[in-house]
């Protein structure tokens, strides 16, 4: 993903980390415990 001035702050954060509430891409343990 190319990060530039048009990229939203949230998208930038998702590019450099993973959202704690995002069980799709979060810790593997979260995916095991919460197969939502």
């Amino acid at each position: 993903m190319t990060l530039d001035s048009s990229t939203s702050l949230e998208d930038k954060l998702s590019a450099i980390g993973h959202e704690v509430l995002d069980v799709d891409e979060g810790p593997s343990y979260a995916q095991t415990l919460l197969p939502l």
Partner: protein
Amino acid sequence: MKYSMSTKVRLMLKPCFLCSVLTSVLSLIETYDLFSHTFPQRNLGMVDHKAGHLEIDIAGDRYDIRQSPGLLTSSNTEGTTGAALWKISPLVAEWLIDKTNALWSAGILHPDAVVLELGCGVTGLIGLVMSKRIARYILSDQRSVLKLLQENVDANAPPDTSKVQGRTSRKAHPITGKASKAHVLALNWEVDEANALDEVLGAADDIDLVIVCDCVFNDFLLQPLVTMCQKICLRLPEKKTLLLIAQQLRSDEVYSTFMDILLRRFRVWRLSDASLSPALQNGSGFAVHLAVLQ
């Protein structure tokens, strides 16, 4: 529009009791994942609690830091933990000023950035280092640490290169610290409001990044800390202020409680290993999160 699963869950559940339960469960999961490693160090994490003076080298610059072993062992009611330098601070400072790091490449940090640190302690090391690279760095903490903090800012101010009578002066201002872009501010999370920032910022001046480094350790301060972060982020509603939380992982109970409180007000991202220096990566005993107000 494609929603992630968590976004769908949030949209379905918010605001309701189930959303609150989900937040608590995910706080526990995040904490479990962070604490599931065997950390290299398990001590409190002070650099040297007996030393009154420390010399710290970061990115080729030496910082002469005074800390206060006396305050550390005192019964000061405002707290004593800010009296010493903690191991995470030099690591965060070194990572933050590396312009190849994710915050610079994402444009979150830039030469015109304004950064506020909460609970910076007497040493203010991150601010001393960062203030050389950005427009302004505001160091805030309780009043009891400000005197020594200001002395550290003054002692480590870069040489004043402004021209005096046509000649370039290389002389620093050890008393006024005029050459420094670091500013010291009293800010008590339990009693102050965000307008306390007006002392060092114009009413319309925004803050790009709020740094909270090693401030998550006291159950009683978790809610005031998050509330203060929220107030600061709401100060200019049209501007999204980013929160950076860097923490040595000590108590899973305290961290889980903090994450639970934080997630009720903020969207939170844990930085990936690729975005961090090796010293701060997963399993190091430290964690770095970024957050924006919901």
